[in-house]
C-alpha cells in the first residue's frame, strides 16, 4: 500500500505501544503481531499522529527532515500494512 500522508492517522484501536531504549514495540491484540518501531524518532512520529491533522504534520513535529521523509513514509506504510496505525476517520 502507499500511505496518504495528507490524511490524519492514529495508532490502531487494538494496538499497544511500549517505548524501549531503541524505539518501541507495537503489539496488535487482534492479529497477535508484534512489530518493532526501530528508532526513537519513528516512535515520536507515531505518538504525534493522534494530535496532528496529517501524517506529514506528525513527521514534521517529530523532527523528521524533508530528506528523511521518504524513509519515514515507508516505515509508516509498513505500520499501516500490518494495522499498527490506521486512518483516523
Amino acid at each position, binding site marked *: 500500500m502507499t500511505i496518504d500522508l495528507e490524511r490524519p492517522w492514529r495508532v490502531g484501536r487494538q494496538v499497544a505501544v511500549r517505548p524501549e531504549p531503541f524505539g518501541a514495540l507495537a503489539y496488535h491484540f487482534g492479529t497477535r503481531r*508484534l512489530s*518493532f518501531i526501530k528508532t526513537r524518532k519513528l516512535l515520536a512520529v507515531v505518538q504525534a499522529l493522534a494530535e496532528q491533522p496529517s501524517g506529514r504534520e506528525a513527521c514534521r513535529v517529530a523532527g523528521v527532515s524533508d530528506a528523511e521523509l521518504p524513509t519515514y513514509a515507508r516505515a509508516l506504510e509498513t505500520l499501516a500494512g500490518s494495522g499498527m496505525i490506521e486512518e483516523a476517520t
Partner: protein
Amino acid sequence: MTAIAAPAPRLVDHFESGLNAPICLTWELTYACNLACVHCLSSSGRRDPRELSTAECMALVDEFQLMQIFYVNIGGGEPTVRRDFWEILDYATAHDVGVKFSTNGSRITPEIAARLAASDYVDVQISLDGATAAVNDRVRGVGSYATAIRAMERLSDAGFEGFKVSVVVTRENVGQLDDFKAIADRHGAQLRLTRLRPSGRGADVWDELHPTAAQQRQLYGWLLERGEEVLTGDSFFHLAAYGDPLPGLNLCGAGRVVCLVDPVGDVYACPFAIHDAFLAGNVRSPGGFATVWRESELFQDLRKPQTSGACLSCSQYDACRGGCMAAKFFTGLPLDGPDPECVLGRGESLLDLLGDREVPRPAADHSRRKPSRPDRACDESPLAGLEVHMSRKGS
C-alpha cells in the same frame, strides 16, 4: 514478527543489552501434568504445594499489565489442570495481557473450543511430537496422539483459525516434517517447530533423541524453504551457521528479551534453564517481578557483552552467536564454548573429548515417582535402557 525498515543501529545490539520488559515471557502455571513426556523440559508431573495462589497469579497479571507485557506464553505442566486456569485466563485478557497457552489438548471440550475461538486475545498451542500415534505416543504417552488430534478437530470445528501445532523436533520425528505440516494445514493451524533441549527430563533422553548432524542439515533446508510460514520461536538460531539465517531475532534472548516465571514464582533466564545458576529471583520478593527483571544481578550480567571464549575465533560466530546457553549447560559444556549441536561439529568433538562427566541436574524435579509410561512399550523402543543411561549421567 516484522521489522520496520528505518535507519538504525542493529536491533539485535539493543536486545542484547536488555529491554524494559520481556518480549517473550513464559509463565508455567503448574508442575502438575496428566502426561509424563520423556523429554519434559520442566520435569513436570506433581503439583508443587508452594504454587502461586489465584490471587497471587492475578497480582502478577496486574504487574504484567503495568509493564506492558503484551502477551504471555502459559505452560506447565499442563496448565488447564489448574482449577482456576480459565479464571486466570479471563483475568489476563481483561487486563490487556494476551495469552498463548500450551496444552496436550486433554481439556479442550467442544464448549471450551467455542469459547477460545471467540476471543482475539487467546491463542492455543497443541503439543504433538509425532505425526503418527506410534512416534508421538512413544515420547508423550499412550493415547496422547488421539487426544491432541481430537483437540485440533474441536478447535477447527469451532472456527478457531491459526492456532498452533507445536512440535519438538527429534531424531524420530524429523522425517515427518511434511506430515506435521499437513496435519496443521488440515486443521487451519500453523506449524511450530522447536528444538529439543537437554533440559529437565530432556537431559535423560537427549543423547538418543536429539537430531543427528545430517538430520539438522535437512531440518535447516526444510525451514529455510518454508520461511515465515512455519514458526520456530527462534529455536534454531544455532543453524544459522550453515549459511543464511532463519527468520527471527537469531540470538539467545535469555534474561534479555526472554524469561520464565515458574509455578512457585521463581524467575529464570529462560524456559529451558530451570537451575539455580539461572535463577534471578522470585516474584514474591519485595518489588515483585519488575524488580527481578530490571535489577537482578544475573540478568544484568546476561545483558553485558558476552565473552565467546573458544568460539571467538570461529568464522561463524556472528551467525550462531555461540548457540543455546541451556543446551551447553545441561550437556556439561562451558557456556563460552560451542553449542552441543554446533553445525561445524565443534560441540560434538568437545563432548567426545570430555567423555563421562557430571552434568548439572535441574533445580526442581516434579516427576511422578512412577512414570505412567508403560514399561512394555519401552522394550521395543530406542529409549529402552534409559535407566542405565540415567545412572551413567546422573548426579
